[in-house]
């Protein structure tokens, strides 16, 4: 190439963000034939047929146009109805709902809508890989706050408080949590609500795993807490609960001012979410619940199996209550989480993701997804146990 330094010519915002730590493992694993992957952050189920079929029908009927920027009215109404039914929360489908291209887009435009240059965003870690990057790209300053394993990775106001400055504007939470499988109880969240009120924060709550809770734990939607609906930007979608990751369909719910601001960005950058995915999403909300419940029941059984397996191996591990991840502590092996993931992949051909990819405090842990078949989980457990028995760094 020429002698122009292209790296320097990139926007400082882009240069400021690191590439995802997951990439390396993907490259190694992709070369291997008999890999069992516990590294996949999406359901192993295919989207239920009735949902796929409704999309095919829509295409046959010629539904191939743009939709309203905010999303098809039918879909927004179904979303509003769903929140009324499930959480007794009232959102106006005309002013409070924005359909997005997955929660990923919703998170990006939520940040861009509320963050001014230099505004600080409190982000409990470990967390999903894009949180910091979205804050940075929006011109904000991500402020990582480590959650503690002793507390099963739930975050408390006491842990957040030292990081509050006069520039703190947003608290970004994601529970049930990727990568830890942690959930927050109502009391935990009530404490956060008080904290948000005290410091007048906007709360972005990523609840994409909200339907996936286990062991009798009901997900508590942050917007249902007293006084929180107005100051919460609630993000959710169809990817995890309905096994619809590739459709790229999500939504944001908030007060009319914030949704209008987000819509402004969305209309210039995305225009609208794909109509086919929106039609499928309508079907998911109208008739998909029974399929979703079945998948959740299956995840729960796998959760027991994998948790049981790690405990029997002697790995320190708390019982995950949500999402489809388990986050065992591998520090006792003497490896860093990065080394552990790499050595395990090379020696036993099991792919998982080092905890450090989700924030510094994830170090010492690995994320294992149990969104894979029971047979594969069982085999992976045998391989991991074998690895631990024969490989100890110190």
């Amino acid at each position: 190439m020429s002698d122009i330094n292209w790296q320097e010519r990139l926007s400082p915002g882009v240069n400021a963000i690191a590439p995802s730590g997951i990439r390396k493992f993907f490259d190694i694993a992709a070369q291997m034939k008999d890999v069992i992957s516990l590294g996949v952050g999406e359901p192993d189920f295919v989207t239920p047929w009735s949902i796929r079929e409704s999309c095919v029908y829509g295409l046959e009927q010629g539904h191939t146009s743009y939709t309203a920027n905010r999303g098809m009215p039918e879909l927004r109404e179904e979303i509003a109805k769903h929140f009324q039914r499930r959480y007794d929360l009232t959102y106006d489908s005309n002013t409070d709902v924005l359909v997005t291209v997955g929660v990923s887009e919703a998170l990006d435009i939520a940040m861009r809508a509320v963050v001014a240059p230099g505004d600080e965003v409190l982000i409990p870690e470990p967390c999903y890989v894009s949180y910091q990057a979205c804050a940075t790209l929006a011109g904000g300053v991500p402020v990582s706050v480590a959650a503690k394993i002793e507390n099963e990775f739930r975050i408390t106001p006491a842990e957040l408080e030292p990081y509050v400055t006069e520039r703190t504007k947003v608290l970004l939470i994601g529970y049930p949590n990727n990568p830890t499988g942690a959930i927050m109880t109502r009391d935990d969240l009530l404490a956060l609500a008080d904290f948000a009120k005290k410091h007048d924060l906007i709360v972005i709550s990523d609840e994409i795993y909200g339907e996936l809770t286990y062991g009798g734990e009901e997900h508590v939607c942050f917007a249902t807490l007293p006084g929180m609906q107005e100051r919460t930007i609630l993000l959710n979608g169809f990817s995890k609960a309905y096994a619809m990751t590739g459709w790229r369909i999500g939504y944001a719910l908030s007060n009319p001012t914030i949704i209008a601001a987000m819509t402004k960005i969305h209309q210039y950058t995305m225009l609208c979410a794909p109509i086919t995915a929106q039609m499928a999403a309508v079907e998911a909300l109208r008739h998909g619940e029974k399929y979703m419940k079945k998948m959740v029941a299956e995840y729960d059984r796998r959760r027991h199996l994998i948790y049981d397996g790690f405990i029997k191996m002697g790995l320190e591990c708390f019982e995950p209550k949500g999402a489809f991840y388990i986050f065992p502590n591998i520090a006792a092996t003497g490896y860093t989480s990065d080394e552990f993931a790499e050595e395990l992949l090379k020696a036993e051909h099991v792919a998982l993701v080092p905890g450090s990819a989700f924030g510094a405090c994830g170090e010492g842990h690995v994320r294992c997804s149990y969104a894979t078949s029971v047979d594969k989980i069982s085999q992976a457990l045998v391989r991991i146990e074998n690895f631990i028995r024969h490989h100890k760094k110190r």
Partner: protein
Amino acid sequence: MRELLELLEHDARRPVSELAAMLHRSEYEVEKQMKELERDKIILSYNTLINRDKLGDDTVTAIIEINLTPQREVGFDSIAERIYRFDEVRTVYLMSGSFDLLVIIEGKSLNEVANFVATRLSTIEGVTATRSHFMLKAYKKDGVIMNDEKIDRRLVVSP
């Protein structure tokens, strides 16, 4: 109990240790429950679903609709019994609608099945009519798609 049945119905060969872990019960409890279900005839048998097309067997499957004259006291039951006692008969259902019994028969050839219907079934007292349909292809049986390739299309690692 229902969850255990659901798992067994899907795959009866799962080891008890795995079932126990998935159901968050002890192996002892799962084993005990399975024994009870067997004793109470809730679990009748553990079968294998075979794709006969792949085996290259030329077996013939026929679905026969049968009309009956119900009998005093026993209704359809005693005729049904006379039918289901034949080894050739795989399945018998009492139906609502335009016929009374739905019978599924397996045989080695078209001839054999036709012969069985003509000489054994239609001659039973109380059977007033039979209509035979020969099965051409099985796409799905007992919830299992016969030629379902399970391909994992996901990326190996994703956030």
